[in-house]
């Protein structure tokens, strides 16, 4: 079956290395650019110096904090995403549990509703939602960037599927002991559903950390703008200093990278199961 095992392995490695170069080059380019004097980033982009700099400094990182309110962007992103993930886990797990485990009039209709709205992409409602919330005067704060995204049909569906697969003996034992629905949920179900909570948390975080369209529509003050809007504006802010922009980029992706390295297994699993990433 394998006539040339060594040749095949060598070929596979060669291909993998070629792909690696293509995939890593832009990331390395950004990292190296962030450490170089601004005027050299573009001037040396066409040479090997783009990847192997001769001088290195952190000046660009200082410039990021001096030229734009990076701390504010970061704080806004953290607050908005904290609200979405924190409230989102609670609200969607509640709904998923009610749909998967409880017997009540209206359950079938609610399940059908959740499955039906799954097909509506956010872009299809962005404009009317923008108008709707502007009309009641709600815009330009952290909450308006978070609250509309707390209830999430995909998260409800992921919780629903997971709870369906949990063995129900534990819950029944708790009920026999006289525990109510809420108590059973928090004491018995939540500790046994850590995998589902981790996956949903990562999916929610990954998707909303990069959110750009909604803050673009809803914010006007720098104080409440998140990082994606920050870098989009920074990259058009004269004088154009590419070193600073790359430093902004490194700082912006760092929180995600740290989470990614720590929870890699969950990232891959979560993304593979949903496919919501733009």
């Amino acid at each position, binding site marked *: 079956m394998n006539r040339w095992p060594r040749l095949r392995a060598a070929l596979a490695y060669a291909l993998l290395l070629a792909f690696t170069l*293509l995939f890593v080059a832009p990331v390395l380019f950004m990292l190296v650019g962030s450490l170089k004097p601004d005027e050299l980033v573009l001037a040396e982009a*066409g040479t090997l110096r783009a990847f192997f700099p001769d001088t290195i400094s952190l000046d660009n990182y200082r410039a990021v904090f001096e030229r734009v309110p990076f701390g504010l962007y970061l704080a806004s992103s953290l607050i908005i995403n904290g609200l979405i993930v924190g409230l989102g886990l609670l609200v969607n797990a509640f709904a998923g549990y*009610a749909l998967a485990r409880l017997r009540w009039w209206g359950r079938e209709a609610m399940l059908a509703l959740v499955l039906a*709205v799954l097909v509506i992409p956010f872009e299809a409602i962005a404009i009317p939602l923008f108008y709707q919330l502007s009309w009641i005067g709600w815009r330009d704060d952290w909450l308006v960037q978070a609250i509309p995204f707390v209830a999430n049909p995909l998260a409800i569906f992921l919780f629903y599927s997971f709870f369906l697969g949990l063995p129900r003996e534990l819950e029944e034992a708790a009920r026999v002991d006289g525990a109510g629905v809420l108590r059973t949920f928090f004491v018995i179900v939540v500790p046994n559903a850590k995998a589902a909570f981790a996956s949903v948390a990562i999916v929610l975080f990954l998707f909303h950390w990069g959110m750009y369209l909604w803050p673009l529509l809803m914010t006007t003050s720098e104080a409440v703008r998140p990082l994606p809007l920050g870098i*989009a504006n920074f990259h058009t802010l004269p004088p154009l200093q590419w070193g600073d922009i790359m430093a902004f980029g490194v700082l912006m992706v760092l929180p995600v990278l740290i989470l990614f390295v720590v929870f890699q297994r969950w990232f*891959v699993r979560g993304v593979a199961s949903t496919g919501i990433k733009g």
Partner: protein
Amino acid sequence: MRDEGIVRERIPRGAPVNRPMRYSQAPAAWLLMTPALAGLLLFLLLPFGLAVVLSFSNLRMGSPLPLEFVGLANYTLAFTDTGLTRALLNNLLFALVVVPVQTALGLALALLLNRPLAGRAVFRTLFFLPVVFPLSLVAVVWVLIFAPGPDGLLNAALGLLTFGGWEPRDFLNDPFWALPAVMLTSIWQGVGFQMVVLLAGLQAIPRQLYEAAAVDGASRWRQFLHVTLPGLRNPLIFVVIVTTILSFRVFDQVRIMTRGGPQDASNTVIHEMVRTAFDQGHVAMGAAMSVVFFLVILGIALVQRRLLRQRGEVS
């Protein structure tokens, strides 16, 4: 995915059927459901209905004109007087190029990594890395990569590869190159997603099938055609549909890299919608574009449902 049906059959739906209920679960269920339901109604269904209603009106931001019903005027005007038609064609072209290229590349990477190689996990991490990058950041980095003149990274690399034969160009301001530049950026960012889904699919194909095929004397290529591809049917449908839908949702890269230009060469439906409704304040027209966009997505979703159902009937 296949397991789900089995689980559902094994575990009856709803509360324990054989045991008498000591109290009604309805109040607790509604208590648990209400926050999510309120969110879905207020921030998803209401704006969705509003999109349809507004699309038949003449609403403009800051317009003194009274609100009126204008019938289908926004829809007809959207296709004739705005960039929508060109944008739809661009999205279609985007899908026709990006979906096959990204799927083939994702499949190639998955096949390469589906063998016992040292450092497999490292490679997988590197290829998946761009997926966790925010699109806005990816767009800004690639603006720099596409920089005009011989100093630009891509121009210089192409010059090197062609031994100086490459004429440096301003990719993002070139009517021909602007859209392919956005495509390339998107492929780089997204291919890791295809890879992990297809890799999971490859690992779910039973090893015995390959052994049986080898015993029957099937070549590697025939094994790929008759074992691998049929085994990957559902993951392939999944990634193709997801990528097609994403191809019609493209916005961030376009807004940041080209603003739809030059001369609408890289304009997309969502970008045109934002430009019309937000930049120019023509909310009603933007709402009509939202509805058109939704119908496109709905069509793709229906195709997916049909493809997956056919599979169910066969097996």
